[in-house]
């Protein structure tokens, strides 16, 4: 048996938007958690008077794995929810296929930081509206306008609890990443 090639997709979005549910739906294994210690710089920013804590702040990331074939394994990482953990995002998106930015239309502005980050760092991303109970409360076009995402960024509807829906949104991301790659190769 040879060692599989690992690929990675990042699931971003606001706090409690359903990222861990999304990971759980597609993963072959119970999602795992890895912790990273905060860097010094972010730690200082984060240190709001808690001088007694010597332990330093850690940030937890949930992730799952999906065997795509015997030679290919996909990891799906959820980003830490709070903005102050953005220091981890650089590592999360390094070498990633791209990101699915999960959106709850009732709390649209929660996903602004994720959209901003992906745009500024040129990470291929799609916006996936998590339609709880299958009810779509806003039209994707309205969401596009509200988020001000470029027309070439796909906006899809998903359900984080549904494996097929989660898979379909990742298919959309991979297709988009292929388009981005083809454009980069030409231009």
């Amino acid at each position, binding site marked *: 048996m040879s060692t599989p090639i690992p690929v990675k997709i990042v699931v971003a979005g606001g706090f409690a938007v359903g990222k861990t549910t999304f990971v759980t739906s597609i993963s072959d294994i119970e999602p795992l958690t890895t*912790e990273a210690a905060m860097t010094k710089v972010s730690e200082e920013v984060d240190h709001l008077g808690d001088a007694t804590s010597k332990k330093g702040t850690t940030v937890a990331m949930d992730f799952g794995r999906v065997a795509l074939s015997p030679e290919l394994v996909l990891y799906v990482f959820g980003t830490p929810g709070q903005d102050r953990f953005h220091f981890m995002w650089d590592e999360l998106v390094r070498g990633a296929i791209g990101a699915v930015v999960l959106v709850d239309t009732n709390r649209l502005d929660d996903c602004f930081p994720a959209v901003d980050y992906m745009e500024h760092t040129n990470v291929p991303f799609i916006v996936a509206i998590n339609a709880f109970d299958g009810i779509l409360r806003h039209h994707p076009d309205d969401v596009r306008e509200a988020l001000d995402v470029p027309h070439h960024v796909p906006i899809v509807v998903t359900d984080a609890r549904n494996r097929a829906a989660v898979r379909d949104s990742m298919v959309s991301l991979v*297709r988009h990443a292929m388009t981005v790659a083809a454009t980069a190769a030409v231009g």
Partner: protein
Amino acid sequence: MTTSGPARPASAAASPTFRVRPYTLTGGRTRTEVELGLETQIRTTEQGMRRAGMLALELRDIVEICRQPLSVAEVSAHLHVPLQVAKVLVGDLITSGDVASQAVVETQQSGRPDIQLLERVLEGLQSL
């Protein structure tokens, strides 16, 4: 569901070794010379299997669980150590030849997977 994941080693998970401060395991080091991504696959070499019994406990745990390839992030999760600690320990094992790593090499200039690899990912997803 597949059964490709390794059995979680109870010895590693419950090991009292890790009640010590995590960075004690690395001699206080927080960085490794070896470039390791969260998803980089780690696999025990034949040398590592032979030498497992001679290794320090925390290194032995890694050599045991990586008999089937695991990512750096999974090593961190299974051993209950922070990511940076897992990277240092795995980096040491790579340097000593007890494990080998496999990262994506089929990349574009951006460091992201190239179109051929993306096509294989697409096929894999569609077959789920």
